[in-house]
């Protein structure tokens, strides 16, 4: 993932609360390999009604509270990213969605209720976002947005967690050994492929 600091582009709005990840990408598309591109699935069913907002060409998306609630499917973020969205602005985000977004270089920028209501009612045509400064800029001036500090650094540097964790390999190994000594029960009692476990062990009755 490559890091980024500033972006500028066309704005689209989804003036609704609780846009869940099932709206962002319906489940039936999720068996597709990522290499085929997920942009075509973004808001697939949601946008197929006449009153639906137009989002073609947008790079900044503004929505109501609790955007990305629901399923943990990272495919919802893939759909936004592959469509060309760089930043989503909303008063709040589903927790799992927001961390998935950051892991894919998509900015989840948290804005106040008042600003959100104003932007949803009268969206500017274009907007600039600056992650380092935490500022949104459009025709009526500049406004701050909120972002967790760890996420800010991650987005700017394009950090990859697996690489970052690799340096802690020794600490992880020591922790695992200590846990196994003190809490041996935390390792599964049986493993492998014994298919008769279901009949020898307790069944479904609680």
């Amino acid at each position, binding site marked *: 993932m490559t890091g980024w600091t500033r972006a500028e582009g066309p704005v689209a709005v989804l003036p609704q609360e609780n846009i869940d990840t099932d709206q962002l990408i319906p489940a039936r598309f999720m068996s597709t390999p990522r290499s085929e591109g997920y942009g075509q699935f973004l808001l697939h069913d949601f946008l197929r009604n006449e009153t639906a907002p137009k989002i073609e060409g947008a790079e900044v998306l503004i929505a109501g509270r609790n955007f990305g609630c629901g399923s943990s499917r990272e495919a919802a973020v893939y759909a936004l990213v592959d469509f060309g969205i760089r930043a989503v602005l909303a008063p709040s985000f589903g927790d799992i969605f927001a961390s998935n977004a950051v892991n894919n270089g998509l900015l989840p920028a948290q804005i106040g209720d008042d600003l959100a209501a104003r932007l949803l009612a009268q969206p500017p045509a274009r907007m600039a976002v600056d992650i380092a400064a935490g500022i949104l800029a459009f025709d009526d001036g500049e406004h701050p947005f909120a972002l967790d500090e760890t996420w800010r650094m991650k987005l700017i540097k394009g950090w990859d*967690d697996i690489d970052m964790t690799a340096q802690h390999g020794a600490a992880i190994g020591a922790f695992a050994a200590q846990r196994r000594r003190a809490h041996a029960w*935390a390792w599964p009692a049986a493993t492998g492929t014994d298919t008769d476990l279901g009949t020898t062990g307790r069944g479904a009755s609680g």
Partner: protein
Amino acid sequence: MTPPRTLFAKLWKAHEVLRRDDGASLLWVDRHLVHEGSHHAFAKLDERGLTVAHPELTFGVADHYAPTRGGLIDADPKIARMIETLAANTGRHGVHCFGLGDPRRGIVHVVGPEQGLTLPGLLIVCGDSHTSTHGAFGTIAFGIGATEVAHVLATQTVWQKRPKSMRITVEGRLGPGVGAKDLALGWIARLGADGARGYAIEYAGSAVRSLSMEGRLTLCNLSIEGGGRFGMVAPDAATFDYVAGRPFAPEGASLERAVAQWTALSTDAGAAFDREETIDAASIAPIVTWGTSPEDAMPITGTVPDPARAGCGRAEHIRAALDYMQLSPGRPLEGTPIDEVFIGSCTNARIEDLRLAAAVLAGRRAKVPGLVSPGSGLVKAQAEAEGLDRIFTAAGLDWVGSGCSMCVAMNGDRVAPGKRCASTTNRNFRGRQGPGARTHLMSPAMVAAAAVTGAIADVRPMLEGRAVA
């Protein structure tokens, strides 16, 4: 003396490998559950030439795409490919997989507890938002995305910032015909679908203590629908009793040592939570959703809300939801005709849920068609041993195999466009049960009542004089 701590804080500390200056903790993962949807994460691993760090702590379950009728041969090739990919990925990395044909297979959040993979004091992750279910055992359990799944596969750890803490205390007794599902939908309706966003929830109080393990699983399962990534109940004798004798659980001296440690897993008296909510159990009626978010829920005695009487942001949501659901404001919810029913999912497809639905359906006929999909192969066998399957089929419902089925409509089971379904699942999102499907969430007893009535109905009078397990 150490200051009093919450259960969550104790478990967090016990899993913290290290904490970075920015406050992010690297947490040890005791169990990692994967399913067909984890194909993105395995692809990431392969791209980088990495292997699974701890295959003995990783378990695969085929559930999201599992056919509930017939085998893979009859399935859509796309669906079959997802299940085969899971088998190939887990097989290649030496990970145990409960695949198609394994009698223990079922929905991942049903199989984990049932097999004794879920234990008190563990940290469990899965690329699925309803992983909070496992918190019912006094476990830190949460859903993660594909990038994080790949990270856990490669390192057996996950980076997280510690969430704020919240306690939901429910005191008193739940009324007859009222259960964990109503309790959960009730608090979500009150606090909102993002009410617990950023918090780890601990459920406490006498009403929670007196829930069975099945009920606690249902309660913790729905945490995410209120925005909470984590939900938990402190373990007690009911928990230890449930765990004993499960295939992957410790036994003998090891179990004794474990129980001694598990007994200390509770919130200390006087520990402070960032937020406290209290609910009077006796005030809860059976709950039904009317809209397209789990927060759009109300007692069965309620009337459909009027957008004209709501605040501006909310009004727009209500209007859009009612338009999608084809409901008129001001009408009683009770009596709304339905087209079909679904009893299943990780929320409500355990044996107790099936017993409850069967208690309502026994000796009665369903006016609408419907599907009953048990939470696992073992739940199915148990239900059949108890004769519950015959009650469902005699009522006119289809008794099928186990899987996510009509909860997420990935395996081909779906509600037809425009049809209205009374469902025991957890999400009434637009199109969740199939494009254009209209979903009303409710408890298994209430779905059974809707089946018999052909409309949304209050189950309480229908339970009078009947023994409920």
